[in-house]
């Protein structure tokens, strides 16, 4: 075990740091949450800057236009961009972290050539059309139906919780191509161009008050068979590539932000004259310690990925511990804020809004990307070898 960075890793860090210092002054101010045109401009603009500097697709293989960085360099990238307060991956999340990596592993050469550059250059925004009203945790129960018609699939059904659907150019879409077999065996993974006729997007307001995800209705949408990634009915396996990515480094940036939020809360307590309060100190001290420990776990997971090429269920361990911590941090914050917790806007000169919004954010984190309960099932079954969940459906 050695947590020191090698010379090459340090050099990577220094180069990146000086690049960030040189370009960040040119990055415009972050637009408001509901100005979608400006948000798209902002997120994809940053992606273009990364691309031109050779930092786009940091962990993607070089042959597909990525930087081919090691998992550790990827971690350094996330750490440095966060520390420099560079823009977050934003709506490029699905393209860069889900759909893109899946294409890298599973797509044909033609598909790669056609789709990967657009993601890296910030030209194309992707969304993820997996969940359906009847298929959330039980994703394999999805029913959005695709019927083959010559060299096209005709797709009808409904997706839900599709983040960024209203701004996306492409969607990684899971469809049902066979209903007569076990549910995992009749799923296919398709690239859906979002300008195809027959798509109706109805934005959903989140409890934060904003639009972030949408319902997506598909009515006889025609998708070329050439847009299929992997074999027909092999989409479940293809999709799992994406999900294991999601549970790896996907939360590093936001965990580093949480560390900042925790320090901020201590500062806030100090300003309120509550930092002498034994209970407040103990609660915040403990959460700060847990964050350090989770940072250590992140490094262990990164090293595991380096050594074995896999993230494994360590990603579930991280997500479970992290989201639980977010809930507790939020609760400590709201109690400390007292009446100021009634406002998402800052009250006076106290920066309270971040903490109220942060509390809400915690509520989403234990649901999105596999709920807390699903993570516990995964840990119990894969790491401890406990009996699998019973199959209630015929699948």
């Amino acid at each position: 075990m050695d947590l020191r960075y090698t010379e090459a890793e340090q050099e990577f860090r220094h180069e990146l740091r000086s690049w960030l210092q040189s370009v960040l002054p040119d990055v415009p101010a972050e637009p408001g949450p509901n100005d979608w045109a400006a948000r798209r401009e902002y997120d994809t603009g940053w992606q273009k800057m990364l691309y031109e500097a050779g930092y786009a697709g940091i962990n993607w293989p070089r042959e597909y236009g990525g930087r081919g960085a090691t998992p550790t360099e990827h971690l350094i990238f996330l750490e440095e961009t966060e520390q420099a307060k560079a823009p977050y991956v934003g709506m490029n999340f699905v393209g860069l972290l889900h759909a893109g990596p899946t294409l890298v592993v599973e797509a044909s050469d033609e598909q790669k050539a056609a789709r990967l550059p657009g993601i890296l250059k910030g030209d194309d925004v992707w969304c993820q059309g997996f969940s359906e009203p009847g298929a959330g945790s039980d994703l394999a129960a999805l029913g959005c139906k695709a019927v083959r018609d010559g060299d096209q699939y005709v797709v009808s059904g409904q997706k839900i919780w599709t983040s960024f659907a209203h701004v996306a150019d492409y969607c990684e879409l899971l469809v049902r191509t066979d209903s007569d077999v076990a549910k995992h065996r009749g799923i296919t993974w398709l690239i859906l161009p979002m300008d195809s006729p027959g798509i109706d997007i109805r934005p959903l307001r989140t409890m934060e008050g904003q639009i972030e995800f949408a319902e997506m209705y598909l009515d006889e949408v025609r998708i070329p068979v050439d847009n299929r990634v992997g074999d027909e009915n092999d989409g479940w396996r293809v999709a799992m590539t994406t999900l294991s990515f999601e549970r790896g480094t996907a939360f590093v940036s936001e965990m580093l932000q949480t560390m900042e939020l925790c320090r901020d809360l201590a500062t806030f307590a100090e300003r309120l004259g509550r930092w002498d309060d034994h209970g407040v100190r103990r609660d915040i001290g403990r959460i700060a310690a847990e964050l350090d420990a989770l940072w250590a776990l992140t490094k262990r997971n990164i090293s595991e990925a380096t050594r074995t090429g896999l993230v494994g269920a360590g990603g579930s361990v991280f997500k479970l511990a992290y989201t639980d911590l977010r809930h507790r941090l939020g609760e400590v914050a709201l109690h400390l804020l007292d009446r100021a917790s009634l406002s998402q806007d800052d009250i006076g000169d106290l920066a309270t809004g971040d903490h109220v919004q942060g509390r809400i954010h915690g509520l989403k984190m234990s649901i999105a990307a596999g709920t807390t309960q699903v993570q516990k099932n995964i840990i119990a079954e894969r790491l401890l070898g406990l009996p699998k969940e019973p199959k209630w459906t015929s699948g």
Partner: protein
Amino acid sequence: MDFWLSDDERDLQEGIRSFVEGRFPLEEIAEREETEAVIDLDRWREIAEMGVFSLRVDGFDNRSAVVAFEELGRGLVPGPIVATHLTAGLIDGASEGSAVVTLLETDATATVLDHAGQATDVLRFVEGGAERLDPGSLSLAAIDRPLDTLTPVWRVDGDVESGTEIAGDADAMRLAGTLLTAAQLVGVAAGAVELATAYAKEREQFGRPIGAFQAVKHLLAEMYTKTDVARSAVYAAACALDGAADDDVDRAVSVAKLMAGEAALFGGKTGIQVHGGMGFTWEVHAQRFWKRAVSLDATFGTVDHHSMRMAEMIDVRSGA
């Protein structure tokens, strides 16, 4: 950066694990329970022969030491292993296992000394240093009902007189002691998860193993998660102490002790719950993990103590 056990570290882990499994079966350990002599002195010397007490004196680093101490915790090996290890090369016989050195903490709520009946030497940290005391110099009253019957305790009455100064860097000793106790606690937590998981697979109710019930599965997943997070913190702190990480050493060690204490206490109590009525019996070992967790949590600072230490280390930019 490579946060992964090296081959040597893995070999050491396996070596200590099979030593503990072979020489310290829980059934045998439990036979000496409720006596004042829970330590089998022959076995104590075997621990010395394995090189555990002299590990760092012999040139091994803190990373190797935490790996070894985790295994000792996992097997509930009794005795003041950490204090004896800390004084190897400083107190006669500590390296060789002819001495049993126990730690006296006088800044706690109550002055309670463990293993006094078999201790040959007492280690105490004082302002700016460390000292050796003669157990005979203390006014000791045996406690009839210790919480952890594998950690017999004595009340220390009256003032404790100064002992003889021990050479060596007391701060470094204290940090190492805290870290190694944290490593033992991770082992205790891991042992509790293993025991409860095995039981959950074998015990059947309502026609299925209780491990098929989600309420039980989820408890075990939480135990595992806390243990693995704590293990990460302990390994990271060992790297910091060895200069193999840039992190602040004091902070990393407090994080490790706090997380390990929490994991072991949670693992201990939850392990009992998963065993149901059997968990509350004397016979089943589940209780022993919880009791050891309490005892080690209250050594070198509790979860609470280190939470407060962490708070002190947070950079509160006042007025910012």
